């Protein structure tokens, strides 16, 4: 496999080979699906929308609906205002969503379409809403697009109804699976605190099959809830890259205190998440949560010899990779290569600090990298395990390294969008996956005389 990839160091300074990121609009589209009754709308050529729907559908194995302005060459020359106005009119008439969330594309951004102005000139039925965000594909990544749409939800919808705040917490969950969002909700609810989570794709992208079709499934954060986020006392922004921008705006616009946290993946990050809720609201930790944490500790002690000291390459989206790096350090593993495709020096700063604090030296950390970089590093010095997206499978096979699939996208395995990796239960799932991957490898490689029943 990958016989064409050159041996040794090559000059690779320009463009990306095997990118570890994609473009902004898909992130905005995904975030929009987390609003109840929302039809995302892509303002550009229909190919963008087709690709985004395809890609999300492959990851979630569930319906992903979105409309497009379907630019032709004429619209590209004269601007897309009339396409967007026609779209808005047709969408409300034919598909009847509560809200349309428009995101731009590299095409409409290069033209410079003034979306707020076009929306103002559009026919919007009484009680219906159109919001927008700018998502130029030539800036940032899909995570930036997700972040921008979350920020636009605040900009358009969040309202503070006076000085007094409600005893409730906003959770901005980051670009995570619906299963993760469900789990976050369960944890906060278990602590007895009312929450507004937005966006929330649970119940949308993990909807049950009942044979009673709903174009807009029951899940998703309602518009009323997003409005009410302005009345919450505090916002937990989970993952700096995906969630901080919306939390910052909520603080600025509605005076809601923002607390930036990591994605609650791993023991420490879950501790931080739960402590943030406890400290702010004085919540009691229910026994079920305490038991779950204890089970994680128990499992870590029981299984440490499966993975401790092993070297690992972690790649994918920045918030996921940061949290996962922290967790594998907790597990006693050595993050040898840590890479994200999304630009942002703070990724390198955060990860390097974690490694320094853990006394780990000789690791490589890179933001705005690609999988060609990662492969070159691995060829220089191999690792015991890879943790990342499906795209890592070519390197994993070529270099004969086990791969634990983690993050977005996972295109070659199913069920993962429903199974949380956040919270203490998520820790158990990750420990199991990491452990099993290494044990499978040990079994595979063992001589007959070393092949053992009990491990």
């Amino acid at each position, binding site marked *: 496999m*990958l*016989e*064409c*990839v*050159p041996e040794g160091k*090559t000059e690779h*300074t*320009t*463009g*990306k*080979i*095997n*990118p570890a*990121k994609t*473009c902004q*609009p898909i992130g905005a589209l995904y975030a929009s699906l987390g609003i109840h009754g929302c039809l995302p709308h892509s303002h*550009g*050529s*229909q*190919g963008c929308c*087709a*690709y*985004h729907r*395809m*890609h999300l*559908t*492959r990851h979630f*194995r569930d*319906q*992903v*609906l*979105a409309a*497009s*302005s*379907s630019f*032709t*060459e004429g619209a*590209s020359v004269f601007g897309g205002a009339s396409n967007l106005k*026609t*779209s808005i009119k*047709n969408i409300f*008439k*034919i598909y009847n969503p509560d809200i349309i969330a428009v995101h731009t*594309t*590299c*095409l409409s*951004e*290069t*033209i410079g379409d003034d979306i707020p102005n076009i929306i103002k000139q559009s026919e919007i039925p009484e009680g219906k809403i159109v919001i927008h965000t700018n998502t*130029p*594909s*030539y*800036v940032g990544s899909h995570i930036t697009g997700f972040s921008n749409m979350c920020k636009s939800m605040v900009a358009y919808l969040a309202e503070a109804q006076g000085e007094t705040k409600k005893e409730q917490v906003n959770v901005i969950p980051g670009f995570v699976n619906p299963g993760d969002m469900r789990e976050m909700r369960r944890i906060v609810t278990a602590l007895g605190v009312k929450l507004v989570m937005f966006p929330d794709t649970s119940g949308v992208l993990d909807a049950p*099959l*009942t*044979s009673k*079709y709903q*174009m807009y499934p029951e899940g998703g954060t309602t518009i009323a809830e997003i409005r009410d986020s302005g009345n919450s006392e505090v916002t937990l922004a989970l993952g700096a890259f995906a969630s901080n921008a919306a939390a910052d705006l909520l603080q600025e616009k509605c005076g809601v205190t923002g607390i930036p946290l990591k994605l609650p993946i791993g023991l420490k990050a879950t501790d931080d998440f739960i402590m943030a809720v406890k400290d702010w609201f004085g919540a009691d930790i229910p026994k079920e949560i305490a038991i779950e944490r204890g089970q994680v500790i128990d499992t870590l002690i029981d299984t440490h010899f499966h993975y401790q000291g092993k070297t690992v390459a972690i790649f994918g989206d920045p918030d996921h990779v940061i949290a996962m790096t922290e967790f594998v350090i907790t597990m006693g593993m050595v993050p040898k290569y840590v890479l994200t*495709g999304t630009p942002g020096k703070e990724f390198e700063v955060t990860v390097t600090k974690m490694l320094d604090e853990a006394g780990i030296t000789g690791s490589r950390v890179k933001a705005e990298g690609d999988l060609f970089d990662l492969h070159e590093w691995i060829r220089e010095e191999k690792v015991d395990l890879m943790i990342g997206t499906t*795209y890592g499978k070519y390197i994993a096979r070529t270099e004969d390294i086990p791969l634990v699939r983690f993050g977005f996208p996972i295109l070659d395995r199913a069920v993962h969008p429903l199974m949380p990796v956040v919270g203490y239960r998520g820790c158990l799932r990750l420990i199991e996956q990491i452990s099993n991957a290494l044990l499978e490898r040990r079994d595979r490689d063992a001589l007959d005389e070393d092949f053992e029943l009990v491990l």
Partner: protein
Amino acid sequence: MDGMETTLEELYTQYPDTVKKNRKKHIVIKSAADESCPQIEANTRTIPGIISQRGCAYAGCKGVVVAPIKDMITITHGPVGCGYYSWGTRRNKARADSTTPKDKIYSQLCFTTDMQEPDIVFGGDKKLARMIDEIVAAFHPRGINICSTCPIGLIGDDIGAVAKAATERHGIQVLAYACEGYKGVSQSAGHHIANNNIMQNVIGKGNERKPGKHVINVLGEYNIGGDGWEQERILKDCGYTVNCVMTGDASYENIKNLHLADLNLVQCHRSINYIAEMMETKYGTPWLKVNFVGVEATNESLRQMAKCFSDPELEKQTGEVIARETARIEPALEQFRKICRGKKAFAFVGGSRSHHYQHLLKDLGMEVVVAGYEFAHRDDYEGRQVIPTIKSDADSKNIPELHLKPDEKRFREGNEYLNLSKEQFEALKKEVPLNYYEGMYPDMKNGDIMIDDCNHYELEELIKKLRPDLIFTGVRDKYIAEKMGIPAKQMHSYDYAGPYAGYNGAINFANDVAHTLTTPAWKMIVPPWERIEEPDTGKQEGASDA
């Protein structure tokens, strides 16, 4: 008949008037009263805001035609997304062969200039040129394709000039495809752009005819799930030498020699008919529309091919292959027919496949009641005789037409390619539809619906009204149908199985369809606590009542 018209009228009521007026022209009910296919509107703009399944010119050019060429590196020039989404997602398989070693295959890699804001502002030509230099130094490919995405056309990067300079600098062919996503109205524009470039700049560059008595090309076969390999197996068995399967598992090396074959077979009419037609004009190569999807269809295609060469040995060998292969798979097919017989299906796939699969479904005793394409033209539905009557519009005019002339040195008459006398060739043309495609319409039944650029709303309504047993469509529609309780198979990627073409493909397909229909969960949708109240759940639960 009336029922179907009423169904459609009900469907249209939700539409605003302008949309209704437009969409009505894209939908045709086959009627015994019509002597020929009524005109269907196709290859025109999608209405903004309509949830179409269509992709763009880039997807048609890079994704469909260009990227499968295994020994060329294809660079997507633009922001990261387009290259990323079209990376490894189309299942056009490739492997090493006599002309291409493993280290010259780039199919599993993705190359993109990853344009950033300053590149959009100041231009991306230099970045592209630098990336080409780095790629040549690191990979030493035989050739490079550059496919541009939407913003490139707007900012005015001259990819043609970059390609030309790189060709001179590196001594390998670097081809530039201006396939910005906004061009044309669908993937179709991109097919055309790719066909033009390959025709003008690659075909005819080689001079090595593969040894063999009857050398053929298979055009418009992308080797999804290994379809092309199954076709090659059968064709070799019959006695043909396959020069090139285009572009599934194709190599640049072989495409250069495309003009040295005796006959072009056309599998996907929409995406490759341009090259077939242009080769006919320039070199005189005859082409034959074939269909290797379906047992009877495969047999018929093989018989027609054999007739083309008027070679008794070839006809005999073809007959033997047909008899042997049909007999081999028939018992297994009969088992699957017990499950599939009588089932009604919708088919929305490809640039000929919604037509092709009707044959395979017929082999299994199933019938298609609604069929259509995302990006077809009128001739794909109505037949090529309508081409002179198709009006060009602002969108189609944006795609250049090459007006080729016969090549002075290399043009030969069609009969010479087939080693026939002129009289024999004329007689053959009466028997075998050379250089012609009849479209989907003749194979549909009265009362069936042909629908162009079917959108989400229409699909949802047609499913509700007609309750098909199975839907063959793309990944975007699959889960929608399934949420409605209707089994669905992805026919762009075969739900990651295949091959589905040829004899082995028929068995694979029948097996997969049978599994889709009978997977036990379909009967368990209604939870036990609801079954008492609603004992009769009808189709939703009885999708596999065979």
